């Protein structure tokens, strides 16, 4: 076995050697040119046609394979080139002048179409390109004085080269030559910075922007290149064919071009070559079956899309390219030297930052200064607007007001501009370039949007060494060539941080970097953050793990409901009364406990047994055991990120658990779909209310009864309105215009009308004004007293415990404590879980 794997490793290394690709292309081109002199008559024509198609294919491979953009209109550029050359030649131009002119025409048309087309995507872009192809086709029909209309153009003089006329054979040689050139062009482009950047954009535009790449610019360049190549191919087609008319360029040909790239293997060097062999050469060999050609192509395209999205070349490459390169070598180089950042750069100054989404003020007047060399943390309860602030600083949201200064004003600038100004960031859910190798992820970022010459060389050895040193610095020790998508969770976090550092940033924004990490990894992360700060970078941390925040921060800013409520050292912040109130919900209202202790039957309505759930590789919830009895109200407590919401979502079927079971009235539900679980009698009132904004309040409530067929509509709505009198006046309004508190009541009413066996509430008090919280909790206490079974998750621990009979405390995805609500309320451990240990 090890022999075999050695052989494949060596083969793949050999195959990956760029010189091999060069040699292969040159050899193929020469043999195509040589065979043109040997083949007779029709075969030469087919060879020339294949070469011409290959040029278009390579162009589309740049656009679709590298940049991920689909065009159904490339026949338009092909026709543009063909007519351009034809018209110019009939006007007395030399072919050698007409061809570059046609390429230029294609490029200009491509650019003009790309700019508006690429701002949109998906079906919109497809429509633009289709429209373009039709306009070209019908322009050719209608502009008779120039294009000859339906009759077309003919009678071109054969191009001459030093007195030698170019007929079929010579044209085949010429086309093969250009096809070879285009392959070399692709090879060089794909390996260089531009190619990598295009791949990055096609994998994740968000991540691409945050390393300084401007997706619109890259997509436009790809579009222009592919349009120019299609036009060149068209220009070669005219003298070869000797006759062109609108019918020569049917719309359907666009799809065949695309088919060739998809079938062959989009994004691979030889994909289009294989694709052309199938779409051009094969039908000629099976000419007796010509009428089934389209059926065959359609079926083939479907088959490839469904079964082998990477195409023929992709299958081979996958089999051969198992080599993941060498593991990262340890490095002793200090970070400041690796990223060559001078000390004492300017601080990041944020002032008066505000933004509202559809009337909801997500951040109001947020300001702080992040000094270089220090760790500044932004904390706050769920929904406080922390990520929103990061998104404004990172350029993804345009603030309504305020200033972001890092040497220059950055407020309102796009994300890639913020990145180029020196702001790097990581994401709550890691945003790696999944299909790029680990080291390429860093190399893309290292270019920082400065891509240089289009066909510039790939990143050199020192650049690779720097990238490797960064990987060593963050503590990644896996192979450098591994595909980022295959990394385990911890490594994803580390590589993302290394990628951010590769930009040589002045500021590093981290959004929940510790989410999903174990204790040891969190400790390592804390050390890493300190070392990054020591290298002179301003580190801005948004994090739920209070132990981590309090341990590494020099300065802490606390947000609540979008507004800064405190700032200072970790010690100052922890003892701040307002902060404690925000986190623990010490409202003045104590909540209304049961008058007599609950004494119902212990025959569980809901049981979770060893419930484990997570996102990707990281478990957020581990082996959670809970029980809720009929008529009981149970609270689940824990800090942000402890896994409370994940627990409710897993129980309700919105998130598929990894393992463990969920029993609802003794029926196993952990594999059931959410709508089946709802029909079985479980109602989740989700975090953020999730009312249907464009439906009326009444319709919202009635949707809650979707699975019931015995609803006495009027009476039941009336009963709910007595619980939530506020909704009565609003019954015909659209739910979207309700206030947060009204929406929360509506969401609960919508859950109740299902007559559920158990009602799950996820953060009902989140973002509500104190008076609203009081009203809401009174209504909950009423429901409890009426015998509704409730499982309640709320940030406001004291309040939740006041109405609950029992409680569970989650920490790091595990149940660390359970017991009667009264005893948990007095427990200082709760405070520790929420605010971090005071040492």
């Amino acid at each position: 076995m090890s022999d075999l794997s050695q052989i494949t490793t060596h083969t793949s290394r050999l195959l990956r050697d760029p010189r091999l690709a060069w040699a292969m292309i040159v050899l193929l081109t020469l043999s195509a040119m040589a065979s043109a002199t040997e083949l007779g008559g029709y075969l030469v024509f087919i060879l020339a046609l294949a070469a011409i198609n290959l040029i278009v294919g390579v162009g589309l491979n740049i656009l679709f394979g590298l940049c991920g953009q689909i065009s159904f209109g490339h026949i338009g550029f092909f026709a543009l080139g063909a007519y351009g050359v034809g018209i110019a030649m009939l006007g007395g131009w030399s072919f050698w002048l007409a061809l570059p002119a046609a390429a230029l025409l294609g490029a200009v048309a491509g650019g003009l179409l790309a700019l508006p087309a690429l701002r949109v995507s998906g079906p919109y872009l497809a429509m633009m390109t289709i429209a373009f192809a039709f306009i070209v086709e019908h322009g050719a029909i209608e502009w008779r004085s120039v294009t000859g209309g339906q009759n077309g153009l003919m009678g071109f003089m054969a191009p001459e080269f030093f007195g030698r006329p170019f007929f079929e054979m010579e044209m085949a040689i010429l086309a093969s030559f250009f096809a070879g050139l285009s392959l070399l062009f692709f090879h060089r482009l794909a390996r260089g910075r531009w190619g990598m950047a295009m791949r990055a954009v096609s994998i994740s535009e968000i991540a691409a922007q945050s390393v300084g790449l401007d997706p619109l610019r890259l997509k436009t360049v790809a579009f222009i290149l592919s349009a120019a190549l299609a036009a060149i191919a068209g220009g070669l087609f005219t003298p070869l064919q000797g006759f062109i008319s609108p019918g020569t360029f049917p719309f359907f040909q666009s799809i065949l071009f695309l088919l060739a790239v998809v079938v062959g293997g989009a994004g691979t060097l030889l994909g289009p070559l294989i694709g052309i062999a199938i779409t051009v050469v094969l039908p000629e060999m099976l000419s007796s079956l010509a009428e089934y050609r389209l059926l065959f192509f359609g079926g083939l395209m479907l088959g490839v899309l469904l079964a082998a999205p990477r195409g023929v070349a992709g299958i081979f490459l996958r089999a051969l390219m198992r080599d993941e390169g060498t593991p990262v070598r340890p490095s002793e180089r200090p970070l400041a030297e690796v990223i060559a950042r001078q000390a004492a750069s300017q601080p990041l100054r944020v002032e008066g930052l505000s933004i509202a989404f559809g009337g909801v003020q997500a951040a109001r007047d947020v300001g702080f200064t992040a000094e270089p060399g220090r760790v500044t943390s932004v904390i706050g309860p769920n929904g406080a607007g922390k990520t929103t602030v990061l998104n404004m600083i990172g350029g993804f949201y345009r603030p309504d007001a305020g200033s972001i200064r890092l040497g220059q004003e950055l407020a309102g600038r796009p994300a890639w501009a913020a990145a180029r100004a020196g702001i790097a960031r990581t994401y709550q859910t890691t945003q790696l370039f999944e299909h790029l190798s680990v080291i390429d992820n860093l190399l893309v970022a290292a270019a920082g949007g400065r891509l240089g010459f289009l066909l510039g060389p790939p990143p050199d050895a020192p650049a690779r060494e720097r990238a490797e040193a960064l990987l060593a610095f963050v503590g990644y020790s896996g192979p450098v060539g591994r595909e980022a998508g295959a990394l385990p969770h911890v490594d994803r976090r580390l590589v993302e941080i290394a990628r951010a550092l590769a930009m040589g940033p002045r500021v590093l924004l981290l959004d929940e970097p510790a989410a999903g990490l174990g204790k040891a990894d969190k400790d390592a992360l804390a050390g890493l953050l300190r070392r990054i700060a020591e290298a002179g970078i301003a580190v801005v941390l948004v994090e739920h793990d209070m132990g981590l925040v309090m341990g590494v921060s020099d300065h802490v800013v606390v947000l609540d409901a979008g507004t800064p409520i405190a700032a200072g050292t970790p010690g100052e912040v922890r003892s701040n009364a307002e902060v404690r109130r925000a986190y623990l919900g010490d409202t003045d209202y104590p909540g209304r406990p049961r008058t007599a202790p609950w004494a119902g039957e212990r025959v569980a309505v809901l049981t979770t047994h060893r419930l484990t759930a997570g996102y990707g590789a990281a478990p957020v919830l581990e082996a959670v055991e809970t029980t809720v009895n009929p008529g009981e109200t149970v609270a689940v407590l824990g800090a942000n990120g402890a896994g409370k919401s994940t627990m409710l979502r897993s129980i309700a079927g919105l998130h598929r658990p990894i393992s463990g079971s969920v029993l609802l009235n003794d029926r196993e539900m952990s594999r059931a779909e959410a709508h089946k679980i709802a029909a079985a009698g479980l109602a989740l009132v989700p975090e953020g209310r999730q009312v249907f904004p464009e439906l009326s309040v009444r319709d919202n409530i009635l949707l809650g009864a979707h699975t019931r067929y015995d609803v006495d509509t009027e009476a039941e709505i009336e009963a709910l309105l007595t619980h939530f009198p506020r909704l009565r006046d609003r019954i015909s309004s659209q739910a979207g215009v309700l206030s947060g508190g009204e929406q929360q009541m509506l969401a609960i009413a919508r859950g109740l009308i299902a007559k559920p066996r158990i009602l799950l509430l996820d953060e009902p008090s989140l973002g509500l004004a104190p008076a609203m919280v009081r009203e809401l909790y009174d209504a909950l206490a009423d429901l409890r007293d009426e015998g509704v079974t409730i499982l309640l998750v709320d940030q406001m621990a004291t309040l939740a415990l006041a109405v609950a009979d029992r409680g569970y405390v989650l920490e790091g995805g595990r149940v660390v404590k359970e017991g009667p609500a009264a005893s948990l309320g007095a427990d200082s451990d709760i405070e520790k879980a929420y605010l971090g240990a005071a040492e």
Partner: protein
Amino acid sequence: MIVSTLITGLGLGAMYGLLALGFHVTYAVSKTVNFSQGSSMMVGAVLGYTFGVTLGWPMPLAVIAALLGCAVLGLVVERCLVRPFADRGSDLWLMATVAGGIVIDNVVLFTFGKEPRSLPSTLATEPVDVFGAGAFPLQLIIPVVGLAIAAALTLVQRRTKMGKAMLATVQRPDAARLMGINTRMVIAGAFALSTVFAGIAGLLIAPLFNVSSGMGVIFGIKAFATAILGGITSAWGCVIAGLLYGCVEALTTAYLGSSYTQIVSFSLVILVLVTLPNGLFGHGEIKKV
């Protein structure tokens, strides 16, 4: 001249609007569309012809059977060509449905035959007089049917349980599931509905044009242009844009010549997309990071 041009335009436009409405219903619930809508329309016409003429079934039965066939086609398209890609977050459904359309067209070509045939209809034999212009009753009925279907769709969505479940799926898919709504079924249903709309369009225009395997291609593309023009997120936008598009097309054909039709109408699409990226009546979505 102008009257008969407008009648033609509104008739064509209503067909574009119907197909565009099909794009709208699937896009609204799943952010995907069936790019072979033109083929669905053709299948409607071909099945209608096969049941009604070849097999000699009574016309109402033939129409119902044809539309049922279209619904099944829609379910198959969703299950085989869209869901596999949408589930893994890829937008290759775009190409898959295009390829699917090619396959459908060609399968019909080899089973139904190559010669275009005309579907006889009593509504398209005797022209009636409309403000001095001659038009078949069918031509007058088509826009009415188009608008009626759009109105019916709106009514069904606002008034029936199934319709509200659909709106709920559009607005908050996860919350809809929490209400016990099977959102996958809603999406599959939307695809069936969209091919039924296309089938109705095919049956309506079959008596005016010839029935053949290739009849839907250009129609489908123009209907998509219409949907984009009107704003694919707006049902009425799709229908109104369809009528506008049909009239622009008919007027261009009448006053400039048939080949300018495509140039003018497709330039219009590009122009609208450049100036109003969400179409005339559509609305954008907030991007979340």
